[in-house]
């Protein structure tokens, strides 16, 4: 079901990633204030955007699961959230590296994106214990979907709240992702963003293919065992 169009998608992803890397290191000019360190943004910010969209998409897929009762939507939601959490951890790690390079500390509270991600990742980490502490499969899926919807609605509210708070205590430091990017930087950023989006969808499909195959295998094993029991 999910393998349709996978190979061209994966190929496009590889091309996009390679192009983005080339642009970042050979095309985009050096930033006047931050120097070479600014290059981190071309991986940090696209990961952040992909992760956030992934969390919201997971919530939307969860809504479709609840309304249709079709468990394949639950699987799609689970995988989207799963990948977004991994990307979220990557956002925190790359953000910490950037903070150390720019400010000398491994963590800063000045950066609203980073702080929001800390809260969001802490919240979504509870997805796993919540999910796996419910034994009944159907109930597990239903409760996970409720969580995914609540958490998905929470993400934008949290961003707004943290941004409002940081504006009060610390002036906005991150001006790079605003509108005033010079042309070459903007192109590089957009290509990086596209590459990250393609990567997300590719990994999402890949994991769904794997999970689907594993389910079908289990079903096949069960059917073969039944057939043997009948024959005996």
């Amino acid at each position, binding site marked *: 079901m999910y393998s349709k169009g996978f190979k061209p998608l994966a190929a496009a992803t590889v091309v996009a990633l390679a192009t983005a890397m080339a642009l970042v290191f050979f095309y985009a000019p050096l*930033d006047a*204030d*931050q*120097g*070479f*360190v600014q*290059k*981190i943004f071309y*991986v*940090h910010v696209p*990961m952040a955007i992909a992760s956030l969209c992934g969390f919201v998409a997971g919530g939307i897929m969860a809504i479709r699961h609840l309304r249709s009762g079709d468990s394949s939507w639950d699987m799609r939601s689970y995988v989207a959230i799963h*990948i977004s959490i*991994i*990307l979220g*951890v*990557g956002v925190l*790690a*790359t953000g910490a*590296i*950037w903070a*150390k*390079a*720019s*400010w*000398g500390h491994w963590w800063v509270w000045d950066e609203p994106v980073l702080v929001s991600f800390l809260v969001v990742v802490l919240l979504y980490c509870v997805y796993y214990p919540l999910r796996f502490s419910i034994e009944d499969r159907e109930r597990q899926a239903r409760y996970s979907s409720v969580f995914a919807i609540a958490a998905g609605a929470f993400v934008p509210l949290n961003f707004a709240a943290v941004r409002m708070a940081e504006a009060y205590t610390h002036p906005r430091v991150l001006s790079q992702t605003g509108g005033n990017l010079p042309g070459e930087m903007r192109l590089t950023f957009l290509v990086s963003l596209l590459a990250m989006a393609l*990567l997300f969808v590719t*990994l999402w499909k*890949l*994991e769904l*293919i*794997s999970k689907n*195959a*594993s389910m079908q*295998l289990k079903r*096949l*094993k069960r059917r*073969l065992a039944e057939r043997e029991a009948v024959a005996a």
Partner: protein
Amino acid sequence: MPALPLDEAGKYVAGAYVVFVTLLVVYVAIIGSKIARIERELTDLTSEDDK
């Protein structure tokens, strides 16, 4: 803080990209090994069924 000199900054930038690539490679490797296991079990089952 003033911008770091190129050689020092390089370490941090490399670190960030290494984090990204590592996450990616580890993830793909885990899924790849899962798919390999599924294929192995599938061939086992089909050969048993053929008997």
